[in-house]
């Protein structure tokens, strides 16, 4: 009897897996088969430490070199301008704390926006507690930071400006090029968190004018546990993670070669298919938005008036509670998020939505849908059907 019960449970689990619709690509993406294949040799075959002088180390080092060129290429950066980190969050920490500590003799004022990812926001809060002065630029109802606000907030003590390129919750894209230009005029270092932009929009660090840029592998069908920070040639940072001196002494620690190799491959593939993927994702997302807006009363897209990345849509379903709607969707095999993924464990409300001026009701009824390469139009149909059914209950 026990065996039969276990068998039927296994079958149920399998059926469940087949019926799952993942719409949370901004939280993370599946590792693609090309990336898996590229990574594989570096676990148990070419497992050398890139810092070793012998041939085993050299093999690993060469793979890392290749990955570095692939990552640099995605950003149109030079290969020596890329350092590998453990995550996008780590890249943000290294960038912000690195510049703050390096330039604190010159000034102590840092400018950022009020719609940053928590890794930028909390690092800034930390810097504040260390004695730095922070300005959090407001955003308008569409989530956009104004150039005027940035200009007027600059003082002669400002040493760093950091504004997110594409918001993780709403997908809203900021005027990074203009901000970087303003920063440049004042000779202030400019950093941008491009974690949610890479692979979705074309990035060119020279064209944008950024001095530093953070990206992350697991958002672009690469593995978790690796990110990268672009640092313009000539810019030096104070070290955060000390040790053997890897990554130009900016991020010590034995490099995660398999993950780095995977990251490189992911960047190569992302760059190759950027236009095609972007178009396809836009199409799917637009279908989702159109269906929801037309069929579900009280639904409203947050940040609709701003330019947004192709795959993200943040929608308030007025009259519902997003936390319970999320659970109900999950029980129907549809995976989305509310707030942002990093906030999920702490059940905190969304800072970004609050900064955009959404009412409490709108904030607490907002869900983020982020589509990806495996999302089909049938997935969209089923999702909208289910949403309609659940919101009528």
């Amino acid at each position: 009897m026990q065996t039969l019960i276990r068998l039927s449970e296994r079958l149920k689990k399998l059926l469940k897996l087949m019926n799952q619709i993942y719409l949370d690509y901004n939280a993370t993406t599946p590792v693609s088969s090309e990336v898996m294949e590229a990574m594989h040799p570096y676990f148990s075959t070419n497992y050398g430490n890139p810092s070793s002088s012998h041939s085993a180390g050299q093999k690993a080092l060469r793979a890392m070199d290749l990955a570095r060129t692939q990552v640099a290429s995605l950003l149109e950066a030079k290969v020596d301008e890329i350092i590998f980190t453990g995550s996008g969050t780590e890249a943000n920490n290294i960038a912000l704390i690195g510049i703050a500590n390096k330039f604190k003799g010159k000034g102590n004022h840092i400018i950022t926006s009020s719609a940053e990812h928590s890794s930028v926001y909390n690092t800034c809060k930390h810097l504040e507690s260390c004695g730095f002065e922070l300005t959090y630029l407001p955003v308008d109802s569409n989530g956009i930071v104004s150039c005027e606000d940035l200009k007027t907030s600059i003082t002669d003590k400002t040493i760093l400006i950091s504004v997110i390129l594409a918001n993780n919750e709403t997908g809203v894209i900021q005027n990074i090029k203009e901000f970087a230009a303003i920063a440049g005029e004042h000779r202030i270092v400019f950093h941008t968190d491009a974690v949610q932009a890479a692979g979705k929009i074309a990035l060119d660090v020279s064209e944008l004018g950024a001095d530093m840029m953070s990206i992350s592998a697991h958002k672009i069908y690469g593995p978790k546990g690796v990110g990268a920070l672009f640092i313009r040639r000539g810019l030096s940072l104070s070290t955060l993670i000390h040790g053997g001196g890897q990554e130009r002494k900016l991020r010590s620690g034995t490099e995660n070669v398999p993950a780095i190799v995977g990251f490189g491959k992911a960047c190569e593939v992302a760059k190759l298919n950027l236009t095609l993927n972007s178009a396809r994702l836009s199409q799917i997302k637009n279908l989702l938005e159109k269906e929801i807006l037309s069929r579900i009363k009280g639904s409203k897209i947050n940040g609709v008036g701003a330019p947004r990345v192709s795959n993200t849509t943040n929608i308030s379903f007025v009259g519902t509670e997003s936390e319970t709607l999320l659970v109900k969707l999950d029980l129907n095999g549809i995976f989305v998020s509310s707030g942002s993924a990093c906030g999920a464990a702490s059940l905190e409300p969304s800072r970004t939505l609050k900064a955009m001026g959404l009412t409490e009701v709108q904030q607490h009824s907002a869900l983020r849908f982020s589509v990806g390469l495996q999302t089909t139009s049938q997935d969209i149909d089923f999702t909208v059907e289910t949403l309609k059914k659940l919101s009528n209950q």
Partner: protein
Amino acid sequence: MTTQKTFVAALSGGVDSSVAAAIFVRSGHKVVGATLKMKNCDDTKEKTKACCGLDDNIQARLAADKLGIPHYFVDGRKEFREKILQYAMNEYAVGRTPNPCVLCNFYLKFGALMRFAKEIGAGGIITGHYAIIKRYGSADARIFKGVDDNKNQTYFLCGLTQEQINFSYFPLGELTKPEVRNLAEEFDLPNAKKEESQDACFGYKGETFAQTLSRTFKHPAKQGNIIDENGKILAKHDGIENFTIGQRRGLGIALGSPAFVVSINSISGDVVVSSNPELLLMKTFTASNMNYLDFQTQTLECEVQTRYRQTPQKAVVSKLDNHRTKIELAEPLRAVTPGQALAIYNGDQLIAGGWIDYLTGSK
């Protein structure tokens, strides 16, 4: 697929709630696990008790994973702080001894968690309470003592409303704790060997519950004197919050014979101690904020319980009004404590609950 009734299993990370969930899962019911989040995840000060902490969250998730059920967190932090911790702090401050577990059931386990369950369309919640529910109709569920005399947890359920009871399922009522532990091993649950959780769930190493509350709310303790029944000052004390009626340990004084706390005065800060056991005996007292579940008459000869793990005492309970009762015990009882919950039984059935008032005294 037919639309089956879904149950939400309240998982604390402990063995009881996990087994309760397992019983329903194995019976073929559709179950969803949920854990109340009552503290912030960066609350790292070492706990004394294993309940509702980070390791318990992990245990809850592991149990859910073992059972193959989804698992969600329900945010109860605000309610926990306001309705449980603040309440407890306030009670201590006026010289009473709070009973947070009873309120936790009312506001959190059968409050916030029940609301969550209803919102996601579930038809009931399952908990690991050792109690039996008998249903006399869809809206007439009644609570009876469980089979395990050592674990009569119905006391803690005396604050539940009829609506809450109707929605609840207690699969452990017919089992003893040793039987539950055996089931946990049989089900191969990850927390089968976990230790029993005893004290207030908000305890920290090296301090009492009251001290933790004082620290949390930055509320200074009410200091004062320890005096004897004649008013003679015996010693100073650090806070009335550290004392409860009948307490023998930690008095810090030597009276020749064992002494215990007889009364606490929150205004003067006096804690009266005595070696005379007669002073602790109480025969008549009142209770307020009554929760009448199945108490039909004006007066009833029944049994009452004035603290956890006490054998219910014979008494005559009379309603004074909709909110207050008078209790006349058949035999005087030691250390009836204001602030504690009062559970009223008719045989094995829990028929009402309330809160012990300031004592009217007398034998």
